[in-house]
């Protein structure tokens, strides 16, 4: 045998085939889409607090619409990843409340329902000529004030909805790399990053001040996300399992490439582009930064989701 090993080490010479990646790209997409879906609400609320509605003419209907689309992507891939998708109903019929999956599914469902109402009201209010005789449109327009009434609650609910996946990861006791405090912060920054990036793409007709605030949120979110990843990448050596997990990125290979592409595209480049945009309003560059941030965020999340699953557990 070529591999000379130390006398105290051991080699597995016969074992069964181990599982590979259990939660794959669908869960990455799930988390990424949820970050956009909740992030636009959080960043949108921040903008509405700072600026007049007139400065952001399409925000009232585009914000819930984007959220609605991405929450449905998130829910679709949540369902699709289940091996028994029709039994999803069991989460509502037989809920087990110690599970973050259960709590999250209930909160995300409620959140999506409220976002749907807001999207309908917002859309039909913004387009008074569309479906004038439709009962749904009439009802939505008649209850226009309901939008503002539920909005504070929706903003409040967006926080646990965006964070609960971090608790699922923390409940995954087998994966030492996923620690609750780090994952909670990562999820929060991811929501702010994805939310500001998504809103940047529709901010062409907004005031320069509003766009500057979006650039500021993007810059802060990319900076702290990058710092969090760097802290975990270089200094997660408190346990042998975390160290062994990080070896899959430290030692090169496709995950190393994906990780650093994610860092460069998703955090470093958008940070500098966003900072420069706060001085000079360049819509094209800011949009470019937003697209890079969304791509890079997906890549970073993908690596962090997959590498702990490659460790043999027994």
């Amino acid at each position, binding site marked *: *045998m070529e*591999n*000379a*090993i*130390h*006398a*105290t*080490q*051991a*080699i*597995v*010479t*016969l*074992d*069964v*085939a*181990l*599982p*590979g*990646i*259990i*939660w794959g790209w669908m869960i990455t997409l799930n988390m990424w889409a949820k970050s956009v879906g909740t992030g636009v609400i959080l960043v949108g609320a921040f903008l509405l607090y700072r600026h007049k509605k007139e400065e952001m003419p399409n925000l009232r209907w585009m914000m819930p619409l984007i959220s609605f689309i991405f929450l449905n992507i998130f829910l679709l891939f949540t369902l*699709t*990843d*289940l*091996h*028994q*998708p*029709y*039994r*999803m109903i*069991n*989460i509502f019929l*037989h*809920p*087990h409340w*110690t*599970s*973050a*999956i*259960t709590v999250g*599914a209930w909160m995300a469902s409620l959140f999506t329902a409220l976002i749907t109402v807001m999207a309908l009201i917002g859309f039909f209010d913004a387009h008074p000529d569309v479906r004038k005789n439709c009962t749904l449109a009439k009802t939505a327009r008649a209850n226009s004030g309901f939008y503002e009434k539920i909005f504070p609650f929706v903003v409040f609910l967006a926080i646990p909805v965006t964070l609960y996946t971090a608790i*699922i990861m923390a*409940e*995954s*006791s*087998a*994966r030492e790399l996923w620690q609750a405090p780090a994952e909670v912060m990562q999820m929060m920054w991811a929501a702010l990053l994805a939310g500001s990036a998504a809103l940047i793409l529709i901010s062409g007709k907004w005031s320069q001040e509003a766009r500057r605030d979006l650039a500021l949120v993007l810059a802060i979110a990319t900076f702290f996300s990058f710092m969090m990843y760097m802290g975990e990448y270089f200094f997660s050596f408190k346990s*042998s*399992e975390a160290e*062994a997990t990080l070896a899959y990125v430290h030692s090169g290979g*496709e995950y190393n490439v994906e990780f650093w592409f994610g860092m460069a595209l998703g955090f470093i480049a958008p940070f500098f582009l966003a900072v420069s945009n706060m001085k000079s309003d360049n819509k094209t560059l800011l949009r470019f930064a937003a697209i890079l941030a969304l791509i890079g965020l997906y890549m970073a999340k993908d690596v962090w989701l*997959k590498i702990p*699953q*490659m*460790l*043999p*557990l*027994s």
Partner: protein
Amino acid sequence: MKLGFLVDLNLCMGCKGCEVACKVENEVPLSSWRLRVKYIDIGTFPDTKRSFTPLRCNHCESAPCERICPVSALHYLENGIVNVDSARCIGCAGCMMACPYGAIYMDPETNTADKCTYCAHRVESGMMPACVVICPVQANIFGDVEDDTSNISQYIMAHQGSVQVRKPEKHTEPKHFYVGGGRQTLDPLAQQRIEGYSLFNNITHLDHVGDPNHGVIDRFLAPFSSHGTHDNSSMMDWTEKGGKETHEEGGH
């Protein structure tokens, strides 16, 4: 009552009788294992020895799989067994992500999570688990760890100081003990897995979770197709692919 398991690794000779008995008793499909015996070679030639480690669900008193299961498909029985209700399981694989011992698999026939149940159906009828009955050297000892007079309690008391559990730092309070184990046999991070180097096969990692021949669309169509009648036929296909189930990402 709290049922537990103890394996005396000094007695185990790696015959894999327990593995086969478990497969037969529980009709465990191909590519899945509730119980497996891992061979580990320790040392360098000529000073080497081979160790055999049977691995199964630990039936933890604080089971992460039970905690993360969104629908209580994984639940405790009164005797401490962590049981699975496959009819309720939604196949989210949360339990597979939570179990620190890699003891749970996605059944490729039912597409639901499954694992060792200490043969709960046999225990209910007053019988011993199949792996205990088959063991030719009585390396598997099963019983009530809360009863001081039980075999397992007596064995634990007789071997105080050398009784171990896997990954105690996870605070799962496993009810599966080992005598005669060491770091090299019980800690997977203390073992090297050299890809492709195995006594009888080079399949190191599965490409699939659950049924390999039923993709995303099939999961939605399954209730309306003939796949409702379970058999092993779909699982036989992978042998025709030339055993290409090695997972290049895997290994450590």
